[in-house]
């Protein structure tokens, strides 16, 4: 870097003109079946906190992985201090002062804090032996600087999620990071821990460290960011200066259209309770009781860890249930396994389509019929002609875009994969539909299609219980919202009562009061 500073006028002028520590110019990246980034550009000034916002699948994480050397762009340029650089590995990124703190923390849980902070850069004595003494001393200083009051010898496993996050930050500071990238840093933090994170970011700013802050919690963004860059479908969608950061402006940039256009306008009028749940208690949860009427879409809101996924998994018989009663269409049913649930007319679109919803290496056809394969059985064998015919119809009906029925689902786009999951369950004509984050990681277009689909089903009398962490989705889709907090129900909101504030108030329980 010194060479550039001394290399005279031209460089200096340019550097001062842009005053940027980092410039990303026209970066593109393709994955099988997905254009993750399409000519994305951004700049970052020293000491600036830049928020990168965008919906799931907008390309935020890919961009950050490229900056951190975990992935290579297909084309485009990265300038550090005005000079083009190749960030070809995590090690290169670290040498150049870039550190990425992952959404899923990357710590070796069985090791202590000092060992994690020095992982791969251990201090040695006599060439091969660990120098624990010096590592512990240095770790203690780092922990003091970030305000984490723990011994360096403490095993990471026993720390809270927030503390683990702090350890990650300390790890980045150890390597003298000048650019710190935080991917959804607050997603697992308590309010108190989040506050401390903000203090830390302010402190880093004082020391000239630049922060790229990725979040889709817009409230937080307006608190910490000096500037906002929005991505949409892998492209730059716009920028907001500090004074322009408002909730509405950010949503408009992220979504690209007004909310009213996305969510179907519908009026629900069903009276017959289709799903009734009484004193239902999953392992580690509190008893809950509620009902969903035929044709009703009930949103299940709450923070991560509130127990929403556990509740629907319990209802579907995936995980063992402690006690409780389920009635479908007035009749009590026993659900001890997903098989029982399917027989009772329940369907579950699970949280993680890649891990729970699909068998990625199998064909579209095989995935579509997985939950109801016995319908195609004749004389102990699968009637392949019947299966194929039926799948042809399903693919057409749900608008799944695939080159053929035999295509492995892993090569489809996120939206089409999700449509395969939905179609797999909906082709069983369920009476009760449990949706766990039905639009996670799909683009806006596919989202809209999925919303229309859910609406159509409700019109046909299906009772729908939908978990979503996207506030707009919950507010836009639900006839009624149940809010969970601390593994139990915190309250219920009618469509008229439902506002972002009201949901958050219930979702944060007593912490908000």
């Amino acid at each position, binding site marked *: 870097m010194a060479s550039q500073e001394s290399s005279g006028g031209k460089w200096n002028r340019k550097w001062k003109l842009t005053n940027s520590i980092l410039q990303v110019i026209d970066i593109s990246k*393709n994955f099988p079946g997905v254009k993750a980034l399409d000519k994305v550009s951004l700049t970052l000034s020293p000491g600036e906190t830049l928020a990168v916002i965008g919906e799931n699948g907008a390309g935020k994480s890919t961009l950050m992985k490229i900056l951190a050397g975990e992935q290579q762009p297909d084309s485009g340029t990265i300038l550090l201090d005005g000079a083009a650089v190749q960030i070809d590995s995590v090690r290169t990124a670290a040498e150049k002062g870039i550190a990425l703190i992952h959404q899923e923390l990357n710590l070796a849980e069985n090791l202590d804090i000092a060992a994690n902070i020095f992982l791969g850069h251990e201090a040695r004595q006599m060439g091969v032996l660990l120098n624990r003494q010096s590592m512990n001393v240095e770790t203690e200083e780092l922990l003091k600087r970030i305000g984490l009051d723990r011994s360096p010898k403490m095993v990471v496993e026993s720390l809270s999620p927030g503390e683990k996050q702090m350890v990650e930050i300390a790890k980045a500071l150890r390597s003298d990071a000048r650019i710190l990238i935080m991917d959804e840093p607050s997603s697992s933090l308590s309010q108190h821990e989040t506050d401390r994170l903000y203090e830390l970011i302010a402190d880093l700013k004082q020391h000239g460290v630049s922060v790229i802050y990725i979040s889709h919690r817009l409230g937080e963004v307006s608190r910490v960011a000096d500037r906002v860059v929005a991505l949409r479908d892998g492209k730059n969608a716009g920028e907001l200066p500090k004074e322009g950061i408002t909730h509405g402006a950010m949503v408009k940039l992220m979504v690209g259209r007004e909310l009213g256009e996305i969510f179907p306008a519908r009026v629900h009028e069903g009276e017959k309770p289709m799903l009734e749940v009484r004193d239902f208690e999953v392992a580690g949860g509190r008893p809950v009781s509620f009902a969903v009427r035929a044709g009703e879409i009930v949103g299940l809101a709450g923070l991560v860890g509130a127990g929403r996924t556990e509740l629907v998994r319990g209802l579907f018989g*995936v995980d063992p249930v402690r006690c409780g009663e389920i009635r479908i269409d007035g009749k009590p049913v026993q659900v001890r396994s997903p098989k029982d*649930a399917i027989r009772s007319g329940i369907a579950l679109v699970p949280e993680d389509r890649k891990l729970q919803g699909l*068998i990625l290496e199998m064909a579209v056809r095989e995935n579509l019929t*997985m939950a109801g*394969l016995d319908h195609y059985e004749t004389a102990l*064998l699968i009637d392949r002609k019947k299966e194929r015919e039926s799948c042809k119809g399903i693919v057409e009906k749900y608008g799944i875009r695939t080159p053929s029925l035999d*295509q492995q689902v892993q090569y489809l786009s996120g939206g089409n994969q999700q449509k395969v999951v939905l179609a797999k369950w909906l082709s069983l004509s369920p009476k009760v539909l449990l949706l766990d984050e039905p639009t996670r990681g799909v683009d806006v277009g596919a989202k809209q299609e999925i919303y229309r689909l859910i609406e159509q089903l409700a019109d046909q009398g299906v009772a729908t219980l939908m978990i979503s962490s996207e506030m707009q989705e919950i507010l836009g889709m639900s006839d009624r919202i149940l809010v969970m907090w601390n593994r139990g129900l915190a309250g219920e909101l009618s469509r008229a009562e439902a506002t972002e504030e009201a949901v958050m108030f219930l979702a944060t329980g007593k912490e908000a009061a």
Partner: protein
Amino acid sequence: MNRVRGILVLLIAVIVFSSVINPQFLLAYNLQNILRWTGLFGILSIGAGLVIITGGIDLSIGSVVGIAGTTMAMWVGATGMSPGIAFLLAIGLSVGIGFAQGLLITKLRLQPFIVTLCGLLILRGVSRYVTGDATQGFGSKHLWLRNLASESPISIPIPGIGPIAIPWPFILLIILAIIAGIFLNRSVYGRHLLALGRNEEATRISGVNTQAIIIATYVISATLAGFGGILFALDINSVQPSGHGEFYELYAIAAAVLGGCSLRGGEGTILGMVIGTAIIRVLYNAINVLGIATQLEYAVIGAVILLGVIADELVRRMGARRAAKRVEAQ
């Protein structure tokens, strides 16, 4: 099917190579021998392959071969039990072993590697103890039964070589392979088996009783091992409790992997397992016929399997890239 074609090419290459170097390889007697051994080992490979498709592994196959072979020979030879009853008992024992291992793997969630490794050790010890480590045999009785392992009921004339007698074990293998192939590719259970090998959680959420299928697979593997063990015992008529079937699980696993089964689970074909077995048997034979130092036996087989698996992996990656491009073009 692409992958099966690949290893079929490998099999033919090894055969052509061997017969060019030494035409004696093509003698009817030699080919019959290869068929017989392919039949015996192939029965084990099918069981090993099905377990590998669940994402597990069965290391106990060799010891099940041992215990089924020794007890059958002991009951018939030493205690004079009727062969039919002894057969049913030995198969029943194998079923029980597979069931117990399956229960431990699914209900107690123990790792298949550990459970079947313990099975390997325990069963070998039991075989040696109950027989007092004494060699067992059927004597000269029950010749018709022993013919089941050594005789050839039909013979096929091949121009240039002469008539080749097809031994019973190979015919049994073909019958079992056809049943297993239909089970794996055409039945609901087979589909579920392939699915759970890829992603057990997603399969379970689809309403499949995945544990039952996994248990059934270990039962099938042990049963085939027991059946194979009885055939091996009948064939040699001199069963050593300490050595009967030792290391056979490794041949079975190697054949299944060579035949396209991935240890990651969810992948494999019955035809591949059979061809994989044939390649290993042909190699064995070729080493003898070609006069390669027998000390190199293991080294040659290991090297060929390694090459086969590397080639397979490369082809798979190319296929994945092509599939990705196809979707993009859409």
